[in-house]
């Protein structure tokens, strides 16, 4: 085998330059691995990839491959040019769910690597864009063997197709002072409540949960998830005035005014004459900018919880959609709080499963039927935090205005009672 490499003049160009080369990695498998199966697979993979580079076309097609008992989690790939590249003719990927925050011990990575070397190509990515560990390249038979082996020591497949997908969470409370959430708990509580919907695709299309500990939204959850859970707080932000003074002394007033005070989107900050910071907490929108700049001096408050947005997604079919606020604040402390979150996710998925069209993301359904119909369907009351501004168009039927206004006053009165108790 070692003497019969496919020529790869174009791919060889990607071995030049200082950034680590994935082509060199595949060649290492071809040239240095002990197993002739892996060598041959790597060689034919390179051959097909070179063919793609020459013709500027892809040559993989999908199909149906799964492991026993599941309908999801494998990305089947069969080569359209398999006769020329037979040893990578079947080149399926297994999507495996990582822990929230993507933590591993080196022992576990080695164990996964050993299993993958036994059954697969030896190529792996941490992680794909949905958030899965991608074990790239194995045959239909070995898909089952590899899954059986790693499933025994704690790993399970993620989603693929029209189902609940693998979630993503930021590093969060494990290492970040900005986090207002227990991302690990939220992520596992939600995902493992929907295990059946992860493994058995029966929804209109994909459904993604992403958890970010603060408004910096490192997980891109507003832009990329159907159900975004983002940390926030309701009380005042914390200001360490001694640290403010130190920061001003170090960086200068001009820097603080230009980079902190005037960058506040709601003009809620003011640098006082004595170099302390005044905060208008009523108008702070928890954007995180000032805290990103003045890390020691400013920090989130203590009354923490989550803002929940529904319906973010990428381009196809109707165009990019951001998530929309449906819960401005949800406390996430007690078991009951978590039950409430899970119930809300269930209501959302159930309503969308009933009303979504085939291949229609949750956000596209909301776009089609209107936010109010969605809210009524899942039992959430309207809130002015859900909109940038009220309606501009007068083209609307308003039967029942009085009842709706009455509902609002009643709800506000109840909130007052709860707040007072």
């Amino acid at each position, binding site marked *: 085998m070692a003497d019969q490499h496919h020529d790869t003049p174009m791919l060889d160009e990607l071995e*030049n330059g200082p*950034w*680590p080369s*994935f082509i*060199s*990695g*595949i060649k290492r*498998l071809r040239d240095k691995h002990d197993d002739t199966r892996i060598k041959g697979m790597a060689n034919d993979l390179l051959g097909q*990839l070179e063919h793609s*580079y020459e013709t*500027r076309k*892809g040559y*993989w097609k999908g199909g149906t491959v799964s492991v*026993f*008992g599941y309908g999801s989690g494998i990305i089947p*790939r069969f080569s359209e040019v398999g006769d020329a590249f037979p040893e990578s003719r079947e080149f399926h990927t297994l999507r495996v769910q990582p822990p929230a925050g*993507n*933590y*591993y*011990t080196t*022992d576990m990575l080695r164990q996964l*690597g050993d299993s993958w070397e036994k059954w697969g190509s030896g*190529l*792996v*990515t*941490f*992680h794909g*864009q949905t958030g899965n560990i991608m074990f*790239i390249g194995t045959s239909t038979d070995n898909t089952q063997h590899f899954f059986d082996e790693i*499933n025994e020591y704690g790993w*399970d497949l993620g989603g693929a197709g029209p189902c609940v997908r693998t979630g*993503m969470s930021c590093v969060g409370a494990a*290492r*970040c*002072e900005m986090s207002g959430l227990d991302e*690990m708990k939220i992520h*596992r509580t939600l995902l493992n409540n929907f*295990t059946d919907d992860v493994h058995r695709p029966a929804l209109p299309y994909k459904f993604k949960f992403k958890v970010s500990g603060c408004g*910096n*939204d*490192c*997980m*891109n959850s*507003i*832009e*990329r998830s159907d159900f975004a859970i983002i940390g926030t707080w309701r009380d005042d932000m914390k200001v360490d005035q001694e640290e403010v003074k130190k920061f001003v002394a170090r960086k200068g007033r001009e820097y603080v005014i*230009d*980079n902190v005070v005037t*960058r506040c989107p709601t003009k809620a900050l003011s640098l006082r004459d004595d170099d302390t910071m005044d905060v208008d907490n009523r108008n702070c929108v*928890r*954007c*995180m900018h000032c805290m990103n700049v003045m890390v*020691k001096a400013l920090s989130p408050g203590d009354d923490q919880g989550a803002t929940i947005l529904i319906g973010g997604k*990428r*381009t*196809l079919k109707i*165009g*990019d959609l951001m998530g929309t606020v449906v819960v401005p604040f949800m406390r996430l402390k007690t078991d009951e709080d978590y039950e409430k979150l899970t119930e809300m996710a269930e209501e959302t998925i159930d309503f969308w499963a009933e009303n979504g*069209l*085939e291949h229609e993301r949750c956000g596209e359904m909301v776009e089609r039927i209107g936010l109010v119909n969605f809210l009524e369907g899942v039992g959430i009351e309207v809130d002015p935090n859900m909109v940038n501004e009220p309606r501009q168009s007068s083209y609307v039927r308003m039967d029942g205005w009085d009842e709706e206004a009455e509902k609002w006053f009643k709800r506000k009165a109840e909130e007052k009672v709860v707040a007072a108790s």
Partner: protein
Amino acid sequence: MAIEHRAPIESGCPDGFQYMHPVMRKNYGAWDYHEHPRPGVLLHVAKTGDQIWTVRAGTQRILDVFTLRTLCDIGDKFADGYVRFTIRSNIEYMVADEAKVQPMIDALEAEGFVVGGTKNSVAMISHTQGWLHCDIPGTDASGVVKAMMDELIDEFKENNMPNRVHMTTSCCQINCGGQGDIAINVQHTKPPKINHDLVSNVCERPSVVARCPVAAIRPALINGKASLEVDEKKCICCGACFPPCPPMQINDAEHSKLAIWVGGNHSNARGKPTFQKLVAAGIPNNPPRWPEATAIVKRILTAYKEDARDWERINDWVERVGWPRFFELTGLPFTKFHIDNWRGARRSLNSSTHIRF
């Protein structure tokens, strides 16, 4: 005889605490502040006074097991055996002891990994597989990214940008790479070429019709065979019909181009999150190193670096200086294709006298 199958253990998402560095486990939810001692290194300090030092390194993302083991060896030797990965596929090593940081950086660099990617750097480009594994790719994101990171490596290793720059690459308009400060995405420019012999066997025709965002596809009888036809005047060449119906070949060696978009920002910091906007198109899909795309990205980065103020992401910068200035500074042409005509497009039009001269 029925084959005995092993029933899966539906364990779902595993508990991450078992894989977390003990100092992070101990101080979970109790961190006080962080510092950025140098590019590629973060210091987090807990309320207890405990410290955790993080070293971040870029890799080739598609790892062979040899590389994976090299990364593990470094983790065993310098990082107490604990690692994590960022959303942009960088590896992070965390240690409680500052003395391990420099030797770890030396070991990573000696093995060819690139320490950096923190704060106001050009971060690792997020992307998916492309020709290596995808069934519908117009290009090879992995190759585009490798070629581009070769040229941007110094910006990854340093912190010379006004704020962080998140780049993404996508091999079709589904945009798996996601929103970015700069996104390099495939843009098809011709309608699909249909293999009418295969459509009726391979495609579920009503669902293909339903996928089209502009209702340009309809069932048709072609040469006596049930097939589909495309109204080529209506077709926006998005490629949405290709995944459910591979005989509607959208990828074309010549006419599948690259386009560049800027100003996507996931963060709520300062302004609300923003989507990326088209700035350049018609860029040749030119393997193996895509030099034309990289050249435009570098022009945008140069203009941003010179003209933006501290903490401005690309979207903040353009919002301050205006789009006419963006096109002037980057030397990119502004064309009729930059004016949006999709739903909601009117909100992108200037209905004011706010004009910079």
